[in-house]
Structures are given as C-alpha cells and as structure tokens.
C-alpha cells in the first residue's frame, strides 16, 4: 500500500473514533445506542471505497479489541464483543464494504451534482442500513434472546437518524469527489 493510502486509512479510523465522542443516545427498547460513528463508517466507504474503507473499520475494531475506549460512550475491550451491539459492530465491515463497492460502481465522474449525491446516498443506505441492520439484528437476537420481531422493530428506531447521516455523508462525499477525488471509480 502507498504511504498515502496507509495514512488515509488511519485518519478515517481516527475520524470514526472522534465521532464516538459525540454523546450517544440510548433507547429504552433496544440495547444498542444511536451513535454518530455510523456516519464515520458511511464516510469511510463513500470517500475511500470498499478496500480502504474495510481497512479503516478493521483498524477501529483492532483498537476496540486491545481495550482502548474508542466506541461511543467511551467503551472498548473484549467485553463489547460479548455484548448486544456485536452484530452491528462486526457488521460495520460488510456494511462499509458494500457501501464502498456500490459507490465505486454507480458513481461517475461526469454526473451532475444531484445525481451523484443521490448515488452516494443509495450506496450508504444499501450498505449501512440494509446490510448492517440485518447483521445487527442477528447479533441482538443471539446475545439478548430478543425475538426477531422485537429486535427488528427496535432497529426501525435507527432509521430516521441513519437516513440523515446518509444524507450528510453523501453531500460530503460529493464535495470530496469534486475537489479531491479518491474513490476508485470508472470513467472519470
């Protein structure tokens, strides 16, 4: 990997960690918080693409494993992987991969601003909502024993927030694409 790629991966991991310092919101009916870190995961996929995005998230998970308090609310350590958020947490990897891959495939250099932002938005929704919620829900069911319906309806509460985050991530990704293109897209 080029040095620049290595630094990009590290700094986006740092952005994900830094977003964890915004206070999470804990809901009463599902033991998974609403957190700004999801925005960081979306950004990693949309700005860096699938491969570097995955490396960024993997680096964050490495810090969690080692015990540094890098998750929202200052959490970290192996205990987190035995907790109810494990599905979402591990799900960040396929989520960022799918987000990045879709963005690489459907975003084009010549698209107008609105179309391009729309493509980024779609990639974020498919990867960081559709794929992520599926794995996240599975994790909640396994750890807490909540039935599918309850775990899934709990996840519905994340949708408004995550749609806003996808909107923000798409707008930012579009601005980056215009001024500092990094995403390995075709037909630039």
């Amino acid at each position, binding site marked *: 990997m080029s040095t620049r790629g290595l630094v990009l991966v590290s700094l986006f991991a740092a952005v994900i960690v830094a977003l964890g310092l915004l206070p999470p919101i804990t809901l009463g009916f599902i033991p998974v918080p609403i957190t700004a870190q999801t925005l960081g995961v979306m950004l990693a996929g949309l700005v860096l693409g699938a491969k570097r995005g995955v490396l960024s998230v993997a680096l964050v998970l490495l810090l969690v494993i080692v015990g540094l308090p890098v998750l929202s609310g200052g959490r970290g350590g192996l205990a987190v992987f035995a907790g109810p958020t494990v599905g979402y947490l591990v799900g960040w990897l396929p989520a960022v991969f799918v987000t990045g891959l879709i963005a690489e495939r459907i975003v084009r250099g010549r698209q107008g601003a609105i179309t391009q932002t729309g493509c980024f938005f779609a990639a974020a929704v498919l990867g960081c909502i559709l794929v992520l919620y599926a794995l996240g829900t599975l994790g909640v069911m396994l750890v807490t024993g909540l039935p599918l319906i309850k775990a899934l309806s709990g996840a519905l509460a994340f949708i408004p927030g995550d749609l806003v985050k996808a909107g923000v991530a798409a707008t930012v990704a579009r*601005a980056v694409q*215009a*001024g*500092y293109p990094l995403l390995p897209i075709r037909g630039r």
Partner: protein
Amino acid sequence: MLEPLTLSLQERLIGVIGLNGSGKTSFARLINGLTAPSQGHVRLDGLDTVADAEALMGRVGYIFQNPANQIIMPIVAEDMEFGLRNREPDKTARMEKVAATLNALEIAHLGARRAHELSGGELQLAALAAMLVTDPDLIIFDEPTSQLDIRNRRLMERAMAALPQQRIVISHDLALIEDFERVLLFHDGRLLADATPAIAIAHYQEIAG
C-alpha cells in the same frame, strides 16, 4: 486563564503582543464572545458578549491563527456567500457583495479556487475576504502574516490599513504593530503593559531575554 483586567479600547488600531502561551488568543476569544468571562463582563458598544450574544452576532470579525479551520465551504466564493445567508436573503445580492469584496482586496482570482488547495498565504487572504464580506464593526487579526512572503505580507498590510473599522492585531511580527496607536503586552495571562508601541515592545524584548 487570564487574570482579571479592566480595559476600555477606543483606538482604531490596537496591537497585542506577548510570548507563545501568554494569553493573546484567550483575550481575543473573550472579546468576540467565543469564551465567556469566568468573572465580570465584556461589553461592546454597551452590549454584553454573553447576555446579548444574539445582537452581537457577526459584529466582531475574527481571523483565526490557523485560517484553514475558518473556511467552511469548499470553494472560496461559495464560502463567502454562505456567510451572508443569515444577513441577505437575495442570492444575486449576495453574489455581488462577494465579487465586490474580492475585487476590493485584489484577489478576484482566488474566488473560484478550492480552499483546501490554497497555500498558507492565500488561505489567510481568503479568510480575510470571508470575514470582510459580512461587514463587522470590529476586526481581530490573530497573527495574520505568519505564513506570508514579503509581497503577500504587504498585500495583507495594505488591506488591513485600508479598513475603516476598529482593528485589534495580535502579532509576533513587531514591525507590523510598531506604528499603531496602542499596544497591549500580555505575559503569563496578565496584562503587563498597555502603552505606546515603543514602550510595550521594549518591555517585551526585556521579558524574552
């Protein structure tokens, strides 16, 4: 961080000097309300920076020590236009004001540039433009020439000198403030001197050893 002090600043051009960490930036943040005083009050035109924050919004212009952090939108002109949204509902009027400000500063060529590609000197000029376009009553410059070559430094000096507003200039570059009306010298969070440039500078050089 700063010790209590009572000051009334009326002069058009005021310099602020002192060692790294002496409290210059903290002082500037108090004046424009970014930091609330832990005791006492800061008043501008009789308005309190804490209680009347709404009314004062946008009346104090501030050029940050690191201007890169100050530009919010990706393109210089876009950023300037963005800063006007609360003040001017009409987009065409905003655009005209942006163009006029860029021309007045002789940096029309920077308008279409991407902010994150600018050199240090160009960034300092772009931050100045974004601040001037909102037409504040008082302007604070926090080390405005630190990254400039002689030519851009002169450009900045000229731009600063031509402003009709009251200006407070923080600088390590003593030549910049030597013909100001009044100079404040900070040391360890205290106002050590409040005098003419010559006296304040002499004092400063003594401290620096």
